[in-house]
């Protein structure tokens, strides 16, 4: 891991090299996290890119390269959340999420359809906490620190998100049974 001297390098070339080094180390994981929140490849690609643009613009505020991941994750999560909020504001029809539309012999793909459709109904804040909890496997306290909110807020959001998901999935499961 590069030391802080790289981040604090005053020369533009060294600073750019330090940024690119850190960014490339975290690019794959960042893209996957954006996928988990947005459930759309193109949206995730754009959000990850925009987050790195924002990170570069604020790179001077980062004093220690060891903090890059936490620092960048906050930017990335906010970028994804803002994209979801904008989408909810401007689209009357939910964006079709990314999952296969056909069934499979074991019903797994069908289950992904059901859960994916339910996830797409959540508010931006709820989608973020669900992704961080069940994709990243972060604890409530860790999520709270990533988002800069109290653990009680995360408990609340998870509670409502799971409650809403359970209701949506129960209905979908019942419909599948009937079919």
């Amino acid at each position, binding site marked *: 891991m590069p030391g802080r001297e790289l981040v*604090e390098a*005053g*020369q*533009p070339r060294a*600073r*750019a090299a330090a940024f*690119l080094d850190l960014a*490339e180390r975290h*690019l*794959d994981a960042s*893209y*996957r996290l954006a*996928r*988990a929140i947005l459930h759309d490849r193109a949206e995730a*690609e*754009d959000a990850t*890119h*925009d987050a790195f*643009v*924002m990170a*570069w613009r*604020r790179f*001077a*505020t*980062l*004093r*220690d390269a*060891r*903090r890059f991941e*936490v620092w960048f994750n*906050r930017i990335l999560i906010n970028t994804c*959340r*803002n994209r979801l909020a904008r989408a909810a*504001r401007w689209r009357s029809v939910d964006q079709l999420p*990314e*999952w296969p539309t056909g069934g499979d012999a074991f019903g797994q793909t069908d*289950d*992904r359809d059901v*859960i994916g459709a339910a*996830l797409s109904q959540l508010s931006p*804040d709820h989608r973020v906490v*669900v992704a961080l909890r*069940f*994709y990243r496997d972060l604890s409530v306290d860790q999520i709270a*620190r990533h*988002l*800069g*909110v*109290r*653990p*009680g*807020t995360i*408990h*609340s*959001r*998870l*509670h*409502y998100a799971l*409650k809403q998901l359970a209701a949506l*999935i129960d209905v979908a499961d019942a419909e599948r049974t009937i079919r």
Partner: protein
Amino acid sequence: MTSDELEQRLRARFRAEIGEREPAPPTLYASLAGIPETMPAPVSGFGGPRGFLLLAAAALLLTLIGASIAIGSGLLPPPWTIDEEAPAVVDERPAQSPTARPSATLAAESSAAPSPTPGPARTYACPDMDVLAERLGAVTGPGWPNPPDPATEPGPGAIAGWDDRGADLVLIDPRTGTETPVLDGVPADRPHGLAGSPNGQTLAIAWCELFVMVDGELHRPRPGLQATEIFQWSPDSSRIAMLTFQGAEEFLVIVRQDAAPPIVDLGSPCEGCRIVSDPLWSPNGSQLAVHYQDRDGTSAGVAFIDPDGGGWMLRPASLVDPMISGWLDDAHLVALVRGSGTNAEGDAIHWVSIPADASDDVGPLDLEGDPAAEVWARHESATTRGLLFAPDRSLIAIVSRGAGGALAPYEVTIAHLASGDERVVWSGEPSEGAWPVWSPDSSAVAITTFTYSATSQGVWVVNADGSDPRRVRDEPFQLISWQAALIRRDG
């Protein structure tokens, strides 16, 4: 479907959708490499790599021309210069901790417009702030907030909370359970908090930035200053201590009750620290305490600062739970210490002896590092989850979870600090948590709890002696508080 089944299906869904080692697309790698080359100066955002490929050439050309003119004319410093801090720093004071960032006073800014100087800006992009200010302004007016007159209107104030379903601010009359929505339908993309001053004369709302309502008028102490819901009024209602952040850096600021400048920047306990608790005012307002953690989690502890001047004093204490503490008096912070009596840091942390069968305990943390007397101890196997002093400091509310892990119910116990007598005043079903707040007169607590059961979830009010428990709301609140002011929508 049980909650376990739901969680398993969610995890399976994510695993199926996203490969564990799935790389980012090559186009993303390509566009990443071009960011520093084409964006040496801050510019407005654009729409991802697809738009990036089209805009890159234009951005490069404009940037080169603009930067050359600006730098050549002296209007701008070279955009790649790393500024250590924003330039609006006066009244700098030395910090006692060698690693602490010095405290300072932030000059007031009249607008949210970003500084023309590149580098760290203290502004934060909150595009809906003006809209939100209009909404808040529309519900304020003469007499809002309205401090109670004890002679003519001895009321218990109002329980306030955020309804997570619609981001509504809802007020509850604790006597009747009557609900009044105050702000409904405002999107809540940011964390937010609400706190009335102890004297009931001012209401502060942190919603992306800090809003202060005093004498029926809405004030924005500093548009653009990033607000968090982590803020506390001083005991004399003269000031608010609030956690804010800029980029990766977190720091405390002090805002005056009348929203007038200056805003005092107390800095951060140590470079790279995260502040992981509310700022806790000592009873006489002479000290602030926060729990801090190093970014990589290698050190943690409690930091103290005089809000009127001086630097941070750090008390490393890796075993102290950052979520659970409170001031016993003006010199002692009572903190929960996890573990079995070994302070890994070897520093000035003192706590009561812990019975072998206890999972945690409460002990006194001496501001000066001197040994302190035992003040209160739990001798049960319950796991303490929260600690809250009553406003009059005679009582303490403890949230604990009994033995049995996730299936154990939460309990709220109220202990008399002088005598040590304690009584369980509320017990819920197995749940995700319970958070109490004290009434301003220390006579009762309101508890919001999250469960999957319709029978105990919601908001409860119970007197401090355990009498008259009543459920005033079926749905839990987010960030519950109990305000001294009689807040009315219609003023």
